Structure formats: C-alpha cells, structure tokens
C-alpha cells in the first residue's frame, strides 16, 4: 500500500531514465536531503555534529569510493587508508602553499592527486586478482604511510609531524580550521557528499558502471565483448581513489582538524571495508547505511554500560567493546550477507503489499 508503484506510467524516455523512477523514492530522498540540510544545524548539539554526523558523512564518502572499486568493479582493495592519506596531505600542502585558493578547489585537486596515486597502485590489478590483489594493495597502504612519516616536506617541516587544517572561508563563512563552527563544517561535508553520491549514482548506471560490473562478473567474457580491462580497471582505481582522497581531505579539514599518519593506518582501511560489506556491496545506499552502522555501533557500545548503570573499569570496557563489535559483525554477516541495503530492499517489497498479504 505505502510503497506501491501501480499506476505510475512512464511516457517519455527521460521519465524512464530518471534516477528515481518511483514517486515514493523521489519524495523520500528529497525529504531526507532537505531534513539533513535543515534539522541538524538547528537541533543537533555540538557533540552530535562533531562525534556522529560529520564522521558519518566523511566515512560515507570513503565507503562510496571503495564501493565503486570493490562492489562495482570487483577489485578488492585494502589500501583505502593510504589513498585517504594522499588526499589529506595534498590538501594540506595545497591549502598552505596557495592560501587564496578556494577550499573546495583544494579538495577537488587533492582528489586528483589521490587518483594519480591510485592509478599507480592499481597497475598490478591487471595481472593479479582476488586476495593476491588485496594483499598487494596493502603495499600501497604501508608504503604511503611510511612516505608521509618520513618526508618532512609533506607536513611543512612541522616538528610534531601533524598537519593542521588552516582557517578557510566559503561564501564568507568560516568552514575549516579550529575557529569554524561544527554546523558550517557539517553543511560543507553534506554538500560534498550529496554531489559525490549523485555523481556515483549516475556513474554506475551509465556506460562506465556497466563496464565495471562486466569486469566484476566475468572479466574474460567482458574482454571478449569489447570491454577493455586495462582502461576499465584503472578508471575504477582512479575514481575510487578520487573519492577516498576527497574523504581523506574531509577527515582532516572537516572532522579532526589536525591529524598525523596514525589517523590513516591499516585500521581505517578495514573499517571502510566493513562499511562497504555490511552496507552492501554494489549499492550506493549501502555505503551510507554501512557508514552509519560502523560509526554508531562503537558510540552505542561505549555509552550503553553507563546508561544502564553498569560500572566497569576502562580497560575491561574497551575489551568488551572489541568483543561485541567483532561478534556483531559476524552476526550481521550471517543474518544478511548481502548487507543492510538488501534488508532495505526486502522491507520495500514487504511495504508494497502491506497490510494485505496478496
């Protein structure tokens, strides 16, 4: 009843090719975006913006990027943290070397740098596949982090080895740096993520996305029907790294404020991979759901014992959190291996008939 597309006819090619052909989807997405723009800056506390919403947006962007590569093009990558670091450090270098450059342009250029590095480390994907490739991408992760640690030029010779987001404005409002308000940073992140999600959605339903999926499903067959593996795979690496690079820049400029290489270590690569898998491989919506899940679970876990009046030592709670987090991940994989996006799809199927059984 609620989600019924009966009676919605498509009478033009444009209507047929719309991103959201069903009216309810269109209404829902528009409402969600509108709510995301209006509600949090008005209602959410600083804690919510800073600890939940901004990291959610930044991680969602990284998850989008990895989902393009792993979910759509089928290339397993564990180098996400390294590519994000490239984005963050090049954004820092650009922003400090050209103080008058618009910060959004800085983000976009940082993505270009990450894309170039991504192409370089994507080259082995032409020869090796599967887990061999996954381990090979770890080379990118470790090498890049080592490079940023070792070469002081990247941090402008800061003795602490950290990079700090400078103050930058957009339309007269301060959006990065220590003096900016969380609301401004949240809205910037939201704008970036919205544009990038729309671009991703359009990418994957066009020629490029279809060639990615062809490579993912059966690469030899794809090659035979005329999909060029070299170009397709490298394009996937480039675009995925572009997203990750912008997310990395966002991580430092919009979320953390300042960071060192530790913020981009192997742990973050796994975290983003978790988001993609738990959200749903090959799903744009899944990237968001996965990011929300992975950002929220640790917060819920660390607050639950306090909320129900249980007191335990910090170390014990830390270990307990690790255990529950690991257990939850296994549980989710068992319950729904295709991720939260699939659950959402099932819900929609149910809503189509609800409340009548047939």
């Amino acid at each position, binding site marked *: 009843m609620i989600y019924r597309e009966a009676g919605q006819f498509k009478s033009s090619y444009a209507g047929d090719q719309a991103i959201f052909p069903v009216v309810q989807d269109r209404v829902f997405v528009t409402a969600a975006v509108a709510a995301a723009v209006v509600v949090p800056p008005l209602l959410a506390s600083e804690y919510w913006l800073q600890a939940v919403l901004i990291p959610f947006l930044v991680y969602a962007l990284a998850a989008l990027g990895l989902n393009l590569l*792993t979910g759509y093009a089928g290339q*397993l990558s564990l180098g996400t943290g390294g590519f994000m670091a490239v984005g963050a450090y090049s954004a820092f270098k650009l922003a400090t070397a050209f103080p008058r450059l618009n910060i959004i342009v800085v983000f976009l250029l940082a993505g270009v740098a990450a894309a170039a590095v991504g192409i370089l480390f994507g080259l*082995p994907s032409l*020869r*090796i*596949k*599967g*887990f*061999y490739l996954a*381990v*090979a991408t*770890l*080379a990118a992760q*470790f*090498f890049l*982090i*080592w490079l940023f*640690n*070792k070469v002081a030029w990247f941090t402008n010779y800061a003795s602490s080895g950290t990079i700090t987001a400078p103050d930058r404005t957009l339309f007269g409002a301060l959006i990065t740096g220590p003096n900016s308000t969380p609301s401004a940073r949240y809205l910037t992140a939201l704008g970036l993520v919205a544009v990038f999600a729309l671009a991703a959605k359009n990418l994957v339903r066009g020629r490029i996305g279809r060639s990615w999926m062809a490579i993912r499903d*059966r690469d*030899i*067959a794809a090659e*035979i029907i005329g999909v060029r593996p070299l170009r397709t795979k490298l394009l996937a690496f480039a675009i995925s790294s572009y997203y990750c690079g912008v997310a990395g820049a966002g991580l430092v400029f919009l979320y953390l404020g300042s960071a060192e290489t530790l913020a981009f270590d*192997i742990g973050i690569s*796994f975290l983003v*991979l*978790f988001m993609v*898998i738990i959200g749903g*491989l090959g799903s744009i919506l899944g990237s968001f759901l996965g990011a929300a899940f992975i950002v929220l679970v640790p917060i819920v876990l660390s607050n639950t014992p306090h909320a129900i009046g249980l007191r335990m030592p910090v*170390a*014990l709670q*830390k*270990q*307990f*959190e*690790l*255990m*529950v*987090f*690991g*257990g*939850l*991940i*296994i549980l989710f*994989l*068992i319950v729904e*291996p295709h991720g939260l996006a699939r659950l959402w799809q099932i819900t929609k199927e149910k809503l189509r008939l609800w409340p009548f059984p047939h």
Partner: protein
Amino acid sequence: MLDALHAVLVAPFRDMAGSPAFLVEVLIGGLFAGLMYSLVALGFVLIFKASGVFNFAQGVMVLFAALTLVGLLERGAPVLLALGLTTAVMVALAFAIERLVLRPLVNQEHIILFMATIGLNFFLEGFGEMLWGANVKKLDIGIPDRSFIVRGVQINELELTAAVTAAVLVAVLALFFQRTRIGRALRAVADDHEAALSLGIPLKTIWVVVWSVAGVVAIVAGLMWGAKSGVQFSLSLIALKALPVLILGGFESVPGAIVGGLIIGIGEKLGEVYWGPLVGGAIENWFAYVLALAFLLVRPQGLFGERIIERV
C-alpha cells in the same frame, strides 16, 4: 644522478663483498626471521587450502595461544600440562568457530568469509585480553636467549631452536597431508568441496581438524615469537608480516609458505641493512610487500600457487 645510481646499484654490493662474514650474519638473521614468518604463514595456508577461507584471525590466534600458555604457566602449571591444556583450548576454539561462524556461512562468497574472520579477529583480541590481561608478559620455556660463534658468525640459540622446530613441524605436516587418511581427505576437500562431499567426506569434521591444526601451528608460532620478544598485543600484528610471505609463496602451498618466508626474511634483512639507510630507514613495514609485489608481476599466482586456468 650518477651518485644516486652508484649508491643504489654499486655501493651495497661492494659493502657485501667487503665483509663476507657480516653478510653471512645478515643472511642467517634473515633466514631465521623468515622461518618465523613461515610459521605464521603456515597457519594461513592450512586453512585456505582446506576451506578456501582467508583467515585473517591467524595472527590473533597466535596471540591467543601465547596468552593462554603464559597465563597457565603463571598459575603454576608445569610446561607439558600447560602445552596440553593450550592445545585443548585451541581445539575447542576450532569447534566453536566451525559451529558458530563457518557453518552458517557455508557457500558464501570468499570476501564475506574473509570479513567474518576479521570480526573474529576483533572478538578474540578482546576476549584474550579480558581473560589474561593486556600487559606484556615474559614467556620462559627454558631455551636460553644467548648466542655462540661458529667461524666468526654469531648464531642465536633461541633462533636455532625455532628453526629446528619449524623444520620438524613442516615435516610432520607434510607427512600428515600425504600419508594419513585424514590428510588425503583434506586434500580432496581442498580440490573440490562438492566432489569431496559426494564421496562421503564429512566437511564439518575436516574443517574442525584443519582449524585445530592451524591452532597448533599458532601455539608453536606463539611459543617462538613469545620467547623472542615477549607476549604482548603487537604479536597479533605479525599476521601482517605473514601476508607478503603468503602471496609470494602462493596461498595453497605449504612449501610455498616456507620458501616464501625465507625469501622475504632474507630480502627484508638485506634491504634493511644495505639499502635502508639510503631512504632513511624503517622500511621493514612495506619492503616485504613491494618485494612480493615484484614477484607477483612475474608470477601472478605466487611461486608455488596452483596455475590459474581461466574459462569464460
């Protein structure tokens, strides 16, 4: 430019030729380090061979085994009893993993199982620390950590013991795989799950056996690493050291894990000693990966991996 080329291509080799005894020492150090990596990689290979699962939790299993062993020893258990109990714990763990993680995930894609083992990784890390505490512990099993000198080359007794143990372990495993009934069943399962099932080989039992064997290998690895550098959280990170060994040797090959480990160990030490200073050192984190990557570009399935035959 010419100076840089000289520093990279000529000077290190001149140094090597200059002091052969030191070179031999470096090589032996690399060999031992490589054997230690092999011990960890072996656990990966066993599980991958028999179930196609890339078990990321192997590193934490090493930590868990070492923690359990140390915990028991600290409570006054004699060495043999502690070893026996630890083995029992690892077998119980294998049963639990098969029942709770693997069985519900039968027939899922590889990446899903891989992620499940990362979940397992988190779980065991928390669980092990909760049971036995997070502080660094010393593991003393009676092998002295001292060195003796043969013809001007230093050899560490502990490392020698580790090497012998690893060699014995590999020999036993090879015999087990080639000669016993269950070993043959394991190879059948590795070849083809469904064909093995239709022949009446019980998949569940096989998985428990393989995970138990991997658990035992983890105990040995934990023992050796723990005796060398103490039992602590960072022990679980040696999984990351074993991964390049794995891709170099091939995921399915036991000899590959050994040879790969030796190549990585030696390459890493040589690179660190002779080329490391050129780029400011601390290259051991990524050098092994780049080395393995270079090998992979020539042989995409690793040195001993099964040849990849692709069909449409």
